[in-house]
């Protein structure tokens, strides 16, 4: 049936408004009180602002759509070299956070269990006095600062703060920093990026590289682009995540065995004498011991019986790796989510060393570190588990400052941690929500939302220095304040005569930008990729653009949403590494129990989805709804199991099951998934918030064993044993297969059962 549109207009008359533009916007949009006058009188003018996404370490550039200067939508910035217009679910959803009903509207004081709002001055005064006291009686070591931020500059600001005030117990959680940590251990410098121009074989140890990683959207593009050019991507992971759904090869392996597997590969290289001798000679201290050790302990059959990976598979991958011209064995923070994480990481580095880190690259001149004072300092201090241990070791603790980190939610054995927290005399949180962690705070000074503050996200993972601007797309509605500003004024007040060259964080950003400007390198993100000719011209000193003053540059920066230097030169990464560690000694018993399951036991493998980064998802209803869409399971925790395993325990597909760990029982909705490792149960991480957002489902981490990576102190996600407590029949309204459950159909079963 063909109807042309004009006829239809005639036919249906005004009713086409249903499709038409702007239908009853007033009725549709409900905004904060302060904004309503603008809305209902507003001319409904559309404007766009560029800012950065802070949902994950990627730091994509966002294009925010505003109506009458109120943000309503966010898209990817097409001119940004990082995401080139692409954006992930988290970035899209992020605008809603600005209007979240649970957001704190001002400083809060905990008066015996209840939060009462107080003025900022009061709050600040309390904070200042308390810290002042600590400094007066020289007890700086009794103050802890736990920070989670993906912004290097903000981290830098905290480092500055701890320096100035002497609160040396600074713990910064930063995805990229964590990734660099083991390199710093063995060589003092980390590679800046995977050099996709050279790299032809990527052996990926556990990184969800296209979902949540240093630069997921960039990696997504690169991997797709290079797959056609003979680039191979082999993933070693306990779960078939979307990241590796398109990889050429997948080795299902529990994180605890990464080191053994890596060394198994190393064995092949060493045996075949195919490793980069020159490099090893030059840079690999203690190589011979290492070689001897590997050859003695890691011949494929042994690795097979240890890890369960067939030896021919190991051989094949080993051969691939050694044949590759510039292979890269890659890992990021996620490798530490295991009790022997660091060891694994070191093994992977060793494996890389055998091929001379061919796949990696480094910027010619350390662009940012030369203008970022404190980047090198205190790089080793990461993550909260140290906090936990230190707290237990450290009874006399006076105060704890928390910014951005919700470590209670992200930690196993929360009971003990909570106990420890409840004993601390003063906890100050800068979170803008009363999340699991800040619910213990005595004082909350909410930070701006990320759409309301300035920052600069610097990144090297593209092989080019880039800085994306995080700028206020809207001036803040609520009585919040940028945490960095609090720090700055604290520095000033606490340390009289401290010479701080900036009086607020914006200045600090500006000064940083000024440094970039003064180098006269790079271009703004408001133009398409420079051509080869341009690059050539640039090399011989042509300036494609120049700004009369810094202010021009600054304005340009804000309009363009960022700066990057496509002309930066890169070199190969060849660090001096020396290994004192001898591998394979850590938690052998754990390996044994995981490899050969005790009877009735299954492995609980907690996996992370790309909709959630460290438990932030529950703020975004649209993400929570979509969380289980793949299985059409909504608002409840589900568990994936291999059909063979299921049949062994006679578990129904799409049935309710109660799992039992040493920490307790929790219900899950069981679904079959043939890609799950036999003997494992995969459970997603991100649901089960108790304090804020959509608190549905269960947080499986709370039920897993109290295991951490020794040195980085990341929680262990996949070393808990679990057993099936009871299998009750029950099902969701959707079914993946034909249902055999008469109760449903005869209507005797009430719906609350599904809930």
């Amino acid at each position, binding site marked *: *049936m*063909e*109807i042309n*549109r004009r006829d*239809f207009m005639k*036919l*249906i008359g005004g009713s086409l*408004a*249903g*499709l*038409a*533009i702007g*239908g009853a916007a007033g*009725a*549709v*949009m*409900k905004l904060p009180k302060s904004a309503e006058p603008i809305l209902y009188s507003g001319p*409904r003018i559309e404007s766009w602002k560029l800012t950065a996404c802070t949902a994950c370490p990627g730091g994509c550039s966002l294009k925010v759509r505003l109506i009458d200067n109120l943000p*309503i*939508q966010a*898209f*990817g910035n097409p001119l940004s070299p990082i*995401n080139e217009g*692409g*954006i*992930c*679910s988290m970035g*899209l*959803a992020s605008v*809603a956070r600005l*209007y979240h*009903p649970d957001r704190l509207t001002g400083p809060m004081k905990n008066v015996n269990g209840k939060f009462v709002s107080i003025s900022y001055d009061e709050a600040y005064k309390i904070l200042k006095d308390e810290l002042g006291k600590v400094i007066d009686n020289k007890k700086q070591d009794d103050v802890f600062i736990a920070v989670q931020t993906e912004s290097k500059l903000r981290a830098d600001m905290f480092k500055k703060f701890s320096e100035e005030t002497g609160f040396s117990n600074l713990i910064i959680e930063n995805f990229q920093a964590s990734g660099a940590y083991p390199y710093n251990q063995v060589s003092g410098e980390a590679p800046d990026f995977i050099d996709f121009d050279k790299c032809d074989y990527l052996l990926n140890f556990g990184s969800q590289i296209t979902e949540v990683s240093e630069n997921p*959207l960039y990696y*997504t*593009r690169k991997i797709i682009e290079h797959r056609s050019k003979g680039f191979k991507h082999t993933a070693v992971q306990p779960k*078939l995540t979307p*990241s590796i*759904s*398109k990889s050429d090869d*997948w*080795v*299902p392996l529990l994180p605890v065995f990464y080191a053994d597997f890596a060394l198994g590969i190393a064995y092949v290289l060493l045996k075949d004498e195919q490793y980069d001798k020159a490099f090893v000679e030059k840079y690999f201290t203690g190589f011979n011991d290492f070689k001897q050790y590997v050859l003695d302990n890691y011949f494929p059959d042994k690795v097979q019986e240890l890890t369960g990976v067939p030896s021919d598979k190991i051989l094949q991958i080993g051969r691939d790796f050694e044949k590759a011209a510039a292979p890269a064995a890659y890992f990021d923070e996620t490798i530490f989510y295991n009790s022997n994480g660091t060891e694994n990481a070191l093994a992977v580095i060793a494996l890389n060393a055998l091929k001379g880190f061919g796949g990696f690259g480094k910027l010619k001149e350390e662009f940012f570190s030369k203008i970022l004072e404190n980047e090198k300092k205190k790089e080793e201090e990461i993550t909260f588990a140290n906090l936990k241990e230190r707290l237990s070791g450290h009874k006399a603790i006076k105060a704890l400052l928390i910014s951005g980190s919700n470590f209670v939610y992200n930690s196993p054995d929360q009971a003990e941690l909570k106990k420890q927290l409840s004993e601390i005399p003063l906890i100050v949180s800068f979170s803008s929500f009363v999340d699991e962690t800040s619910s213990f705070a005595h004082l909350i000074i909410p930070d701006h939302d990320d759409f309301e503050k300035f920052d600069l996200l610097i990144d090297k993972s593209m092989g080019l220095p880039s800085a994306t601007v995080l700028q206020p797309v809207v001036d803040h509605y609520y009585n919040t304040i940028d945490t960095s500003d609090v720090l700055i004024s604290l520095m000033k007040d606490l340390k009289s005569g401290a010479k701080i060259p900036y009086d607020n964080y914006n200045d600090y950003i500006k000064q940083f930008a000024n440094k970039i400007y003064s180098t006269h390198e790079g271009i703004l993100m408001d133009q398409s990729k420079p051509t080869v000719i341009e690059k050539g011209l640039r090399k011989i000193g042509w300036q494609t653009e120049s700004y009369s003053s810094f202010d021009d540059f600054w304005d340009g920066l804000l309009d363009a949403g960022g700066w990057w230097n496509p002309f930066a030169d890169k070199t190969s990464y060849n660090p001096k590494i020396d290994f004192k560690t001898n591998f394979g000694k850590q938690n052998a018993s754990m390996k044994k129990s995981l490899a050969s399951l005790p009877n009735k036991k299954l492995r609980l493998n907690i996996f992370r989805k790309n909709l959630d980064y460290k438990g932030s998802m529950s703020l975004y*209803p*649209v993400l929570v*709804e*979509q969380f289980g*869409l*793949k*299985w*059409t399971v*909504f*608002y409840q925790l589900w568990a994936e199991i*291999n059909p063979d395993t299921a049949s062994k325990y006679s578990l129904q597909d799409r049935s309710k099951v109660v799992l039992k760990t040493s920490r307790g029982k929790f219900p899950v909705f069981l679904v079959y*998934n*043939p*890609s799950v490792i036999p003997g494992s149960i995969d459970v997603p991480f991100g649901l089960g918030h108790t304090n804020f957002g959509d608190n*549905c489902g269960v947080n499986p981490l709370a039920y897993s064993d109290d295991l951490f990576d020794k040195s980085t102190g990341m929680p262990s996600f996949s070393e808990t044993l679990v057993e099936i407590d009871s299998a009750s029949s029950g099902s969701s*309204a*959707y079914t993946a297969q034909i249902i055999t459950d008469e109760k449903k159909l005869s209507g005797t079963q009430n*719906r609350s059962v599904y809930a």
Partner: protein
Amino acid sequence: MPRYGMVIDLDKCNQCGACVTACKLENNVQIVSKENAEMGRAMFWMKMLDTSYEGSYPDVRAVNVPALCMQCDEPSCIKVCPVRATFKRDDGIVAQIYPQCIGCRYCMANCPYTAKVFNWFKDEQPVENEKCQNIDVSVRPKGVVEKCTFCIHRLQIAKEKAKAEKRELPEDDYVPACVEVCASKAIYFGDLDDPHSKVSKAMHDYRKFTLQEELGTKPKVYYLSAKSE
């Protein structure tokens, strides 16, 4: 007159699901209450369906298909509508007229792709989403059927822009939200009849297939896959 269509390259798609979120937010698709979601009334104009698994462990791969309204050339939903609430525009987009729909759900029953969704209750977004809804798209009343419209409002805006600037409507001016956000650039969109458009080039790929070809509904959403289904 253009004939808008879409090509989704499953070999590129990395199943991140951004298209699903983008669609929901762009079109103010209702986020139903927990109870209703569990009853099976969750509303998605675009779904990322876990269709099947290929191969056997450990060489197993998930086949995911981003499924939206196929915008058929021979739509079976139009055939049965008693009140002309759904119709095919000249540019090939199958549109749904919410004020005309009487909610008999016959079109849903007759859609072989189960692409349509129904407003079982009055639209009630979570407050934070209500506050940042897309004003270009009117919220559907209770009791009507709705579905993917290829973000038709974007077309109208683009057209008006072009008209105001007295120029032809160029290809890239109008793309649906899902296409715009796709990080792996796996979705092509444009005029199928224009031999120079990206989409028609992609459409003539040997890997092309459509869902339920045998039904002769002639979908305008094509899929590319080396191992086609």
